């Protein structure tokens, strides 16, 4: 055994890798961002019981166990063609909104915080969590921790376990909600609504009153006119748990609204020769390369895309904030990547209000929370809105319910083509004639990166390691000429 000082190590190989190709004149030909995917999972799933998928898939991500748990559970409903009783659906949606709020809150404060609450021009040493605390104050910082703790406490209660939820079953949930627990949810919901309105106020005070920030949000460098996709209810309002997938074009007009079971008719995947990464695009429009605009099938998911794809939000205070965002940024859709932070705080309000609505519904304590599946299984497809966007689970089984084929489309993958657009724009504006502004390039890329909040923590967690952002520059002959790392 030896004692060592571990210098930044990582177990997340190949993650956050940016590749930039220059032409003969030293100008950027094309910049790419590699989104790692869940390689090997499909094989791992083969031959396993479909019923185990909500437990297995919730273990593949250290950040979003609930998103996978819920998408898998819904895929099982579909596999066994069983419709959960109303109380079961409400319980699932309630638990899911607790998770969405918890995750969004974390990112709004600690992830977007360094860019917005502290500021893009602040000295580098302050652009971190401590800088955020310095800006919002110790009390606010503690409030975030406290709120998350309360939300996680309720999740654990409803999920049956602290970490891996065991709530979802085909046709329902494993247990109902007691009156006392319902009261607890209502109490937490009230504090959560206060908390989210406080977050919005902070955003308005720090960001919206600062002309420089507004200009940055709407700057061309962070703007891409793409299609947007999100899960919507019957009235085209965002719903994180259920509905149909709606796609709007760059002008905000509906292109299509479909059941997730038909996703293969609408979404195809493009493969680039230089990478194993697949880039999902809209089949109806086609793959036209890494371009934005109406003629390109690239689409985007996650908070801003959801709001863009919707006609409103189902709860009053969130709807108010939604309208204000679109008024301020010049109407719908908003194409500015950095507005994702704003959209995220609006969704936090929605989640908190939705928790209150669901917990306020007396039917939610109905003990009838499961229907037993009776159909012979063949194919099951389920979808939820993960915090980072549309997440699809697709299983095919034999008649005993053993997985023959599993396909997961994770949110970050859905955003991968648009992320390439962002990286490309950043690279083109900061690399001229082979000259690179190292720090400027990394800063700009990181800001875009954080706005999408791509999650590569699937199947991983980092102990002392952190994910390095690596930029590699290749000349026109394919020779590696520079490597910038942070």
């Amino acid at each position, binding site marked *: 055994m030896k*004692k060592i000082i571990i210098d930044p190590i990582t177990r997340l190989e190949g993650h956050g890798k940016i590749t930039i190709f220059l032409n003969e004149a030293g100008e950027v030909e094309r910049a790419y961002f590699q989104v790692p995917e869940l390689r090997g999972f499909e094989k791992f799933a083969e031959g396993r019981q479909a019923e185990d998928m909500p437990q297995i898939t919730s273990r593949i991500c*250290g950040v979003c166990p609930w998103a996978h748990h819920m998408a898998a559970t819904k895929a099982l409903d579909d596999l066994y063609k069983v419709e959960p009783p109303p109380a079961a659906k409400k319980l699932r949606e309630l638990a899911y909104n607790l998770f969405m709020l918890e995750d969004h809150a974390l990112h709004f404060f600690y*992830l977007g915080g360094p860019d917005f609450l502290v500021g893009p021009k602040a000295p580098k040493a302050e652009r*971190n969590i401590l800088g955020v605390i310095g800006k919002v104050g110790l009390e606010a910082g503690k409030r975030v921790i406290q709120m998350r703790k309360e939300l996680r406490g309720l999740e654990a209660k409803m999920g049956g376990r602290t970490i891996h939820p065991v709530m979802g079953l085909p046709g329902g949930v494993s247990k109902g909600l007691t009156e006392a627990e319902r009261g607890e949810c209502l109490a937490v919901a009230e504090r959560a609504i206060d908390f989210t309105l406080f977050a919005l106020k902070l955003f308005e005070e720090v960001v919206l009153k600062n002309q420089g920030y507004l200009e940055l949000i709407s700057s061309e460098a962070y703007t891409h006119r793409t299609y947007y996709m999100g899960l919507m209810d019957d009235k085209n309002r965002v719903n994180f748990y259920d509905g149909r997938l709606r796609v709007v074009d760059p002008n905000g007009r509906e292109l299509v609204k479909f059941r997730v079971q038909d996703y293969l008719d609408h979404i195809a995947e493009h493969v680039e020769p230089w990478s194993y990464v697949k880039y999902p695009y809209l089949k109806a429009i086609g793959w036209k390369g890494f371009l934005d605009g109406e003629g390109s099938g690239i689409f985007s998911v996650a908070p801003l895309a959801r709001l863009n794809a919707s006609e409103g939000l189902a709860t009053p205070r969130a709807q108010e904030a939604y309208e204000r965002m679109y008024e301020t940024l010049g109407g719908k859709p908003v194409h500015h990547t950095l507005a994702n932070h704003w959209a995220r705080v609006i969704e936090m309000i929605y989640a908190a209000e939705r928790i209150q609505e669901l917990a306020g519904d007396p039917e939610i304590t109905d003990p009838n929370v499961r229907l037993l599946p009776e159909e012979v299984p063949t194919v099951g497809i389920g979808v939820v809105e993960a915090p980072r966007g549309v997440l699809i689970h697709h299983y095919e089984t034999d008649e005993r319910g053993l997985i023959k084929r599993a396909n997961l489309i994770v949110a970050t993958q859905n955003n991968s083509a648009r992320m390439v657009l962002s990286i490309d724009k950043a690279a083109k504006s900061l690399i001229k004639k082979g000259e690179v502004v190292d720090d400027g390039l990394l800063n700009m890329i990181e800001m875009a*990166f*954080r706005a999408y909040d791509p999650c590569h923590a699937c199947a*991983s967690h980092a102990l002392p*390691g952190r994910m390095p952002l690596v930029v590699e520059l290749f000349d026109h002959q394919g020779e590696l000429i520079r490597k910038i790392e942070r």
Partner: protein
Amino acid sequence: MRVLILGLGNELLRDDGLGIYAAQALRAELELKPEKRGIELEVLESPLSGPAILDLLIGYDRAIIIDAVRTEGGRPGEIYELDLDELQLGLKPSPSLHYAGLPELWALAEGLGLDFPKVKIYAVEAGDLSFGEGLTEAVTKALPELLSLVREEIRRLPSVNRAPA
């Protein structure tokens, strides 16, 4: 004194399951032979990453973390023992908090004035981190030594009189 033994990892990723298996083994032992000496020992396993780990650590006086790692040039099965304060990484900017490591979490806790435990880390160099169950041979062989190191660390914890509630 409240002490947490935290096994980090994911048992669906071969050697990444190390922390989970180690924690399970230690829990079973501790249930048979509970610690006295006024030490309140808890064992947890977690696949979580980033700031979620902070939620698990807050409120303990000491924490022993067990995990699989991959270091440059490391030999699978190699055991590392280190104190968190040896990880002199500072608070470098990270592109995403998803990847925040313990030093960042520690800094966050300090910044907020939360009770962050004194952390000791036991890590084993992983061989295979692909999807699959069960540890590789090299890591399996390292497990008994790892467990005895952790047991020793538990024995080294200072005895305390039960603190008043």
